[in-house]
């Protein structure tokens, strides 16, 4: 499983976001390496199609694919719409959980068995 964590250092919750991601990974019994990228220029945001901090990709897919729709690259904090309709600068644990489950389900059975967890 490929996990990527992109953040803009001006947004104060990026450490909390990473902690949240690690918590859900531990809960699922997963321990993949997390590729962490600090995005701090407009050019970098454009190159990476970074739409706000933090952004988490699991096997290249955004943990909040709906929230990504219609967004263009921005050196800014990202808005997540939570399950109950509230806004947050972080994805919910549930969003991360679903994204991990989706990624594992999309993999061949042999690979799922090798990775364990979920």
């Amino acid at each position, binding site marked *: 499983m490929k996990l990527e964590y992109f953040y803009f250092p001006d947004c104060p919750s990026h450490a909390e976001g990473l902690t949240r991601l690690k918590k859900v990974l531990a809960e699922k019994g997963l321990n993949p390496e997390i590729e962490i990228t600090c995005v701090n220029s407009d050019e970098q945001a454009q190159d990476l199609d970074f739409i706000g901090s933090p952004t988490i990709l699991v096997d290249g897919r955004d943990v909040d694919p709906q929230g990504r729709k219609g967004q263009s690259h921005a050196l800014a904090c990202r*808005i997540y719409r939570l399950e109950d309709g509230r*806004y947050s600068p972080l994805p919910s644990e549930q969003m991360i959980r679903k994204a991990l489950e989706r990624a594992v389900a999309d993999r061949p059975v042999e690979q799922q068995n090798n990775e364990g967890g979920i």
Partner: protein
Amino acid sequence: MSKLNLGDQIIDFNLPATDAGTYSPESFRDKIALAVIFSCVHCPYVKAWEDRLIDLGKQYQSKGLDMVLICSNDAVKYPADNFENMTGHAREKQYPFPFLHDESQAVARAYGAERTPEVFLFDYERKLVYRGAPDDNYEDPGAVKQEYLRDAIEAVLEGEPVPTPQTPPVGCTIKWK
């Protein structure tokens, strides 16, 4: 961090609002307390706290509080924060307070504001009595343990000292030109 320190007198401003008016601290002279809050449209921290600020504004308006929101962000880099979008947002959220545009960013610089949202609460003499975040949990209103702004407002309205006069502001950085 700050240009405006606790106990300092309010710094004057004269800014256009989304309701087509122009406001200065003098516009609120009859109120016991005045909360000046640096805010914007695009920031998720603002969105997360916004309904709570609206509720506070409504709840304490009749008790002697006025609130004013100021957007100082560079609207060229962040078009969501331009005056047109501010106006639409204030209308959509039915802001019970004026939403002012600090296009030159002079007011934010004078106050030493750094984040959105960032609260500056002034007492009847218009001295700064609270500066910082609205409360201690931007994400979950149900998990708030410290209602910094509400407690400060209550204290000012009752003529008591503010229990926690300063907290670190939490939010997006102000987008400077």
